[in-house]
């Protein structure tokens, strides 16, 4: 499948919004009915294009939140000064049309044969493609052990909270809340850094594969710390989305 997908022309098409689900106060999951969808891999993304009455076009790239074989879904965080995300989170309704192209990407992807153990490191909405990987692992019957370390500002900012509270067998979810913690919080209450990774990350000798996604500064800190701790650089996959989200 991958071979044919690689040579496929990437064309814009109109999808229909089938559902909009609130994840947090500022984050929505948008489920899409895409008529001509060739299937995607865990970790891929798609491009959204909005065109206004004057013909002004704005394009943004969003990670796919769903596993291969599930309905296509993206999870979007509202950026107050954004051109695209406020429309997607505040205005878009089930039944609306949305122009997109995808799936896109061949680097930040995981298939069961890529092995593990898997170390998934998320800053803010960087958790979105990692959720696709976790769901793909479960649906494909993989038993690769997974640790997901997820940094958020507060508990209310945690995306997919209910789902992550009930992880599949073999999946450990570890939270770090950087700004505010609820009373009785037993998870981490600080930023992810080399010292925290030394406690959480699989030892390099176990030949783990790491996927790091989040704001650029988060990804730089985490990926450099992993390489310094002995992870081969080619086993640390990175995806940076700028200074937008909060961790």
């Amino acid at each position, binding site marked *: 499948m991958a071979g044919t*997908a*690689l*040579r496929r*022309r*990437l064309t814009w098409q109109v999808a229909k919004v089938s559902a909009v689900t609130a994840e947090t106060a500022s984050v929505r999951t948008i489920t899409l009915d895409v008529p001509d969808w060739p299937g995607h891999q865990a970790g891929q*993304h*798609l*491009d959204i294009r909005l065109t206004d009455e004057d013909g002004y076009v704005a*394009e943004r*790239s969003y990670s796919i939140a769903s596993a291969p074989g599930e309905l296509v879904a993206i999870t979007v965080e509202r950026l107050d000064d954004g051109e695209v995300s406020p429309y997607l989170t505040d205005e878009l309704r089930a039944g609306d049309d949305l122009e997109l*192209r*995808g799936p*896109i*990407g*061949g*680097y*930040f992807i995981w298939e069961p044969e890529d092995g593990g153990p898997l170390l998934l490191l998320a800053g803010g909405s960087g958790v979105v493609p990692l959720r696709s990987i976790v769901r793909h692992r479960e649906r494909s019957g993989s038993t690769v052990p997974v640790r997901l370390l997820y940094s958020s500002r507060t508990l209310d900012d945690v995306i997919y909270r209910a789902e992550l509270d009930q992880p599949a067998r073999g999946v450990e979810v570890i939270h770090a809340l950087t700004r505010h913690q609820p009373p009785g919080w037993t998870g981490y209450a600080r930023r992810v850094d080399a010292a925290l990774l030394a406690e959480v990350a699989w030892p390099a000798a176990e030949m783990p594969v790491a996927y790091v996604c989040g704001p*650029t*500064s988060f*990804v730089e800190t985490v990926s450099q710390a992993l390489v310094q701790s002995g992870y081969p650089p080619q086993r640390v*996959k*990175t*995806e*940076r*989305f*700028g*200074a937008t989200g909060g961790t």
Partner: protein
Amino acid sequence: MEAVDGNAIGGLMHEVFGTEMTATASVCGNCGDARPVAELMVYLQAPGTVVRCRTCDSMLMVFVTIHDRTCVDLHGLAVLG
């Protein structure tokens, strides 16, 4: 302005080259640094899209799109593919 990375231009590069490019190898023409396109530094808000070397900061690629036509400058790359 903060850089994102080559994952963000997967759609643009697929459009230009007709195939998935983010996992493709690149070599910087200045310092020889080799890494997948996905790991390069990308500035989306410049006039056009500017791609720079993660090691020496040299400009590797520039994409400028006007009215559905994309001009591509790859002069900073020694190897792509």
